[in-house]
């Protein structure tokens, strides 16, 4: 199907980092089953470096590919860099997404932010709340 780039199809067919980290240091889940997509990201963090990352996704092809690409982009990187990952960067790394699928890359960005926030909360690390928009503000879903 020509709907997606080869990169998207590759990450969809062979998603990297699928799974669960039982003793994760931070877990983030965003999306809504009613809207048709949910992403969950598990982070293992050692000395401020993301030493391992796994994801689970319920959603369309581009949602699965976006999660896969996003995990690749932050694996082995410092937490601060993960926080800077934008949805645009995810989409670009996938050689683009169709306009009506851009929200999948937004979900990937938000899922990572949510996981980092969870890590900060668990460890009593101070942070700027403005960095973490809540899901309700996106207005993607009609439900």
């Amino acid at each position: 199907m020509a709907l997606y780039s080869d990169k998207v199809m590759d990450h969809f067919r062979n998603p990297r980092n699928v799974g669960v980290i039982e003793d994760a240091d931070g877990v983030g889940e965003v999306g809504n089953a009613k809207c048709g997509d949910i992403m969950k990201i598990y982070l293992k963090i050692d000395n401020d470096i993301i030493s391992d990352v796994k994801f689970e996704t319920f959603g369309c092809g581009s949602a699965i590919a976006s999660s896969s690409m996003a995990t690749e982009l932050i694996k082995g990187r410092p937490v601060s860099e993960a926080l800077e990952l934008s949805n645009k960067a995810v989409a670009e790394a996938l050689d683009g997404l169709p306009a009506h699928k851009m929200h999948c890359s937004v979900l990937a960005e938000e899922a990572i932010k949510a996981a980092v926030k969870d890590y900060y909360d668990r460890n009593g690390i101070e942070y700027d709340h403005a960095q973490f928009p809540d899901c309700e503000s996106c207005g993607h879903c009609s439900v």
Partner: protein
Amino acid sequence: MNIYADNAATTKMSRTAVDAMLPYLDQIYGNPSSLHSVGQRANEALASARGRVAACLGCDAGEIIFTSGGSEADNQAIISAARIGERKGKKHIISTAFEHHAVLHTLNKLEKEGFEVTLLDVHENGLVTARQVEEAIREDTCLVTVMYANNEIGTIQPIGEIGAVCRAKGVLFHTDAVQAAGHLHIDVKEQNIDMLSLSAHKFHGPKGIGALYVKKGIALTNLIEGGAQERGKRAGTENIPAIMGMAAALEEACGSIDENAAKVSALRDRLIAGLSEIPHGVLNGDAVKRLPGNVNFCFEGIEGESLLLLLDDKGVCASSGSACTSGSLDPSHVLLAIGRPHEIAHGSLRLTISEETTQEEVDYLIGAVKEVVSYLRGMSPVWRDLESGKSKFVTA
């Protein structure tokens, strides 16, 4: 293996239909309105095609208008009935919540003009009853339009009973028979149908051609103005090759309706039985009152588009009513109309088979769907929560 299981979207043309078209592309290519012989030969072909289509529906040739397809026929039937009603001060129309958009969007347009539309609720089994129609009819009702069979879940409506109610109450009755024509017996007189839409590409004919049956005496409103073709009710030089292909395809399909229905519904039931083994899935639509080739399931914990993409990788062409495939933010209005919650409707799969489908293919389909559903559930956080008891299953 390559399996085409999307026959409700469109069908492969039959050899008979292709052969019926060919001479009209480069030999008898005349304009049926022309006086010369090549035009007149085209005109004879047109008349014969009209007669053959009419015979398949149990009406007269003069009651058939050729259109560009099902959508145009639906639009013209509804607009015409609305104009007739309007002239008598009747501006109420009854339909159902799970019609095709060709019907629903036309009704929306009329609502903006001041018509009142009642959309009947569809039962969980995908059926409406004649009783519901009867109770909804008012003094100012000018049209009842109920589809013959639903395009997504395949359920067959009690058209004869609804026709009888409308006739008794003196209200015009239109049915969108796009999914039914060529697959189910239709007799417009016996079933008291006043107007009926059909489309050739759903029964192995060509795309872009359809027909509207209009009972004698019902005045049509033009959607397209111009020449005097189609009794002046639909302008434009007739697409003779497509019309010939449609007539041949419809005749062929109607000639073997019982045989095809028996064969295809046996395969359908085998497919339904196989897919029912997948836990936490549910068949959409009545198991018996459904089109011979239609299978439609919802599977919990997965999303339809990724299901389709992975099935495509396995050579299976299918369809889904998830939001991602419907091109809108909401899942299929049909699945919502039968009461499926959003989260379940996103995980829908429609497989529509044909006379050409084999038992071997059905068995392959069952295996492929089982494999893909379980793979996607394996990476789904929704499924994890369902399995761990954190959230509740909706289906058994």
